[in-house]
């Protein structure tokens, strides 16, 4: 039986001072254990996340989202987490989808559940972004062997055992493909669950632009080459 204390939500954050308090408060309505990893933000991300009730870890220099995820996962494991869910700090993810992942894990007895916006739904997703992410999916299927529908979704669930085997070394955006490649080589049971991603003016203004989509694709390729 899963108790709430078994679940840790890990939120890597960089300069999300405007929205992090709301994100943490929304998550905390259902899940009390939240670890925000402040990746050396230059705004008030740390203070806002802390005052909203999260446990906040702080990187003294900016390392990247991949590094922040690994720090958060390491912390959650140290706190005895049985299940770790990674969640974006910019408000694109829905708290209800955490429950979707947990339910899918139980139904399938999976070791990891990855959110998929293409099984679920998206709101205001730019067309170029959709194209790039679809291309990334094809690339990911060819390179990892995992038949996923979404290669770059920050909403993921890992069991403790799986999280203990993960070692994210790609500090920046290439961590997404690294996680998938590591899951594939661990030969653990990986399933997907439908999730919703909302593209807000805030998240799109923060650099989730079309150019960033190309960068994601480029860094997936670099991540593969530097493996």
């Amino acid at each position: 039986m899963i108790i709430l204390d078994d679940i840790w939500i890990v939120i890597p954050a960089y300069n999300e001072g405007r929205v992090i308090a709301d994100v943490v408060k929304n998550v905390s309505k259902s899940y009390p254990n939240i670890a925000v990893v402040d990746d050396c933000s230059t705004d008030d991300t740390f203070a806002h996340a802390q005052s909203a009730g999260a446990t906040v870890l702080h990187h003294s220099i900016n390392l990247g989202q991949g590094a922040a995820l690994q720090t958060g996962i390491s912390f959650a494991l140290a706190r005895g987490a049985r299940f770790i869910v990674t969640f974006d700090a910019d408000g694109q993810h829905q708290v209800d989808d955490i429950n979707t992942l947990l339910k899918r894990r139980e139904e399938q007895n999976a070791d990891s559940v990855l959110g998929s916006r293409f099984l679920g739904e998206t709101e205001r997703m730019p067309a170029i972004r959709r194209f790039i992410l679809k291309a990334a999916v094809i690339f990911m299927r060819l390179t990892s062997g995992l038949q996923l529908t979404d290669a770059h979704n920050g909403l993921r669930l890992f069991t403790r055992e799986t999280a203990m085997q993960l070692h994210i070394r790609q500090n920046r955006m290439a961590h997404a493909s690294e996680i998938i490649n590591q899951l594939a080589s661990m030969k653990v049971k990986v399933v997907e669950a439908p999730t919703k991603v909302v593209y807000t003016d805030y998240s799109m203004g923060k650099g989730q632009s079309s150019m960033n989509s190309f960068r994601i694709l480029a860094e997936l390729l670099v991540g593969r080459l530097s493996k």
Partner: protein
Amino acid sequence: MIIFIIIINILCIAYMLTQRHRSPVIVWIVSLASLSGIAMALYPEITNDIARKLGVGRGADLLFYFWILISFFLIINVQLKLVSVNQNLTEIVRAMALESALDKKISDQNPGD
């Protein structure tokens, strides 16, 4: 000029010997290159002889190709070292973040300490 080249190369070898504990591979490569430099300064035709044997036009071309190869190796070496340094830096920053957060949790649980 030849004496100048020989002196510079000898100084280079002497310096490399002082650095042999830091990066033995680099020391070996640079020392061999310096010894080759001395040989070529004393026997300039040697590069043309070697070039002809290898099917390359001129000694100068041969030297150029070797320089490209050595430079490529050095660049790759530096890149790999950078990756390693970056990983070490990441581990340090992460350890600091975790220690601070876990210590805070312990002190929150034991406010009297």
